[in-house]
């Protein structure tokens, strides 16, 4: 019977998964500088990979995508400019409010509820990642200081959980405020509330009448005076935006 030499034997065992933790760590350390070992591992992984067809899929927790996105954004904060726009397929929208020229919406990624069943017996949160890549014109590049927010919504509690995961904090004397934008001009921008400065998460209650509109319209974070936009006044400069849109269609 043929035998595997040391390098290929080690590669085969690594791909199979029989090595101890220490042995695996040793292989990983060598792999990056030993091309022969690296190639042998790739070949054995490819050789055994068809076995993976035999493993039945399993549904991950519905919140998994949101958590993965959150970790990515947190981990990639210095490179957040690399997060690119979702505007393809959507018209960039603009708000001609006082104090704001125009704003292009960027990214909103949403994981919606009812992951396992169309019934509403289990209520999973909606989650969105909001950022922007153009302000006020679509040509302005996103910078690493542009604020990015992770927003989740639990309809059972009718609460939004807003967390800034990267980007600059509001300057002294200012605050971020979350708005629900009007659908086809049916109402003025509706303030959902101020984001608490320094707090990791802000909880915002959603009025029952606004709930149906929440997933159908854009959310915008604006920069406002410390106590928020005065009633009846125009919204301040928008800094981040996006729309809750289910990807589980």
């Amino acid at each position, binding site marked *: 019977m043929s035998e595997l030499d040391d390098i290929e034997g080690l590669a085969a065992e690594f791909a199979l998964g029989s090595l101890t933790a220490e042995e695996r760590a040793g292989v990983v350390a060598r792999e990056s500088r030993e091309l022969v070992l690296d190639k042998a591992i790739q070949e054995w992984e490819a050789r055994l990979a068809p076995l993976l067809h035999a*493993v039945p899929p399993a549904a991950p927790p519905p919140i998994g995508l949101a958590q993965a996105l959150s970790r990515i954004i947190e*981990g990639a904060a210095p490179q957040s400019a690399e997060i690119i726009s979702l505007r393809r397929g959507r018209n960039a929208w603009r708000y001609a409010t006082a104090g704001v020229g125009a704003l292009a919406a960027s990214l909103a990624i949403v994981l919606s509820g009812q992951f396992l069943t169309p019934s509403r017996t289990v209520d999973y949160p909606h989650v969105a990642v909001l950022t922007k890549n153009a302000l006020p014109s679509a040509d302005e590049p996103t910078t690493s200081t542009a604020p990015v927010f992770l927003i989740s919504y639990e309809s059972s509690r009718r609460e939004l959980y807003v967390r800034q995961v990267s980007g600059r904090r509001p300057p002294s004397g200012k605050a971020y405020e979350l708005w629900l934008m009007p659908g086809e001009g049916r109402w003025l921008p509706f303030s959902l509330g101020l984001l608490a400065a320094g707090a990791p998460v802000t909880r915002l209650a959603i009025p029952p009448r606004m709930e149906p509109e929440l997933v159908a319209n854009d959310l915008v974070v604006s920069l406002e005076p410390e106590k928020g936009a005065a009633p009846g006044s125009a919204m301040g400069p928008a800094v981040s935006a996006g729309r809750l849109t289910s990807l589980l269609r």
Partner: protein
Amino acid sequence: MQVSGGELREVLARVAAGDAAAFAVLYRATSMKLYGIIVRILGRRDIADEVLQEVYLRVWQQARGYDPSVASPITWLATIARNRALDERRRKVPQSLEDMPDILEIASAEDVAASQELADEARRLLACINDLEPQRRRILMAIYFGGMSGEEIAAELGVPSSTVRTWLRRSLAQLKVCLGQ
């Protein structure tokens, strides 16, 4: 969500460029498969949840390094998931062969042959595995699907680790010859 290999390659390229929307598409298309692999090895969903997140973080960070000439996207992803699950599994209380009675069922030729996803190469590989001596076949499957280490197998069977290593390497060499590679 069904996505073809070609579409997954395009999605991975977009992920490599930092496209978070493409990442979401990738997650939707592949997370059930990767989660199945992770749960199979770890046996605990709470730990598997965390590992799945780490796998996708790694995918995000390493997408630029994906080489389509080496592996299909799903194989690349599944390999990352399996390796990460194995690393985690090595930190856990050892399992026993007796704790994994369904491993052999999952890996049996009949079950796999029933899968519509089965590629010809999977059938050939299983045929070669079925040619192995029964005990060695069982060991191979316990390692690949259950994440057991050679040391754990040796302890369970009451034989030296070096003996198990010899068995494994001979079994793997036999597989390679059988596959003609």
